[in-house]
């Protein structure tokens, strides 16, 4: 039982770490800014899901690939693929439907916390 949990979380740590390490390599080598990094990883997630390999990676890596923004891209693509079985309208809208929770949370919490807090000048 304990060993099982250890291996599970070890895998998550390793895979999540590797994904972020690739991001850092991109930053160091290409001087990409954070928005570009996020877009790149998101599109990677979309592509991985669209070609059908994401679920195999996820089976091994668990949250190690779903917590990085790749997982967000995967949800978008998975929703669209699911919708495509129902019709063209659903093919276009089910992607957003599947990430509605995350987007709503980001916008609402963004709004609430921006009301509550102000950005502060940073010390050196």
């Amino acid at each position, binding site marked *: 039982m304990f060993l099982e949990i250890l291996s599970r979380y070890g895998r998550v740590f390793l895979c999540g770490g590797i994904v972020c390490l690739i*991001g*850092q390599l991109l930053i*160091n080598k290409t001087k990409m800014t954070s928005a570009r990094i996020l877009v790149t990883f998101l599109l990677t997630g979309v592509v991985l899901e669209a070609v059908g390999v994401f679920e195999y990676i996820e089976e091994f890596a668990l949250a*190690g690939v779903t917590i990085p923004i790749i997982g967000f891209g995967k949800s978008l693509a998975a929703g669209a693929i699911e919708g495509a079985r129902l*019709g063209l309208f659903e093919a276009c809208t089910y992607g957003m439907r599947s990430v509605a929770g995350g987007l709503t949370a980001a916008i609402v919490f963004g709004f609430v916390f*921006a009301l509550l807090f102000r950005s502060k000048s940073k010390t050196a």
Partner: protein
Amino acid sequence: MIGEKEYAALVKQASPKTNEAKTLFAAFCVGGVICMIGQAFSDVYAEFVPLDEKSISALVGMTMIFLGALLTGLGVYDKIGYYAGAGSIVPITGFANSIVSPAMEFHSEGIIFGMMARMFGVAGPIIVSGVCSSVAVGVIYYIAGAVA
């Protein structure tokens, strides 16, 4: 005066380099830990929340976004980011950070034209590219399905 190409070479040779090992290690560790926290929420929710698998994974994402937003509000997330680099950009908490930080920054320009209008200054490209690519995938799958 020195030529452009020659000067570019001089700058390149004199510029300090990124400490690769240190930044990569920090990104690896912080990114790994954030994912482990997400996994922990996922395991706990699976045990105690009576929802289907998909909703649970959405809920985990929302929880992480909440945490990212909270740490940004408290002024902690940018300090983590200073050391972790991609380790705190790539996880979904970094997405939350990229929405909350401009909203906070432009609070001083008012709620409508400051906070609400500028909220997507950093995250806008992420949402646009995500939505457009998902529509593209959906349409391709629809056409492929219709043909088959």
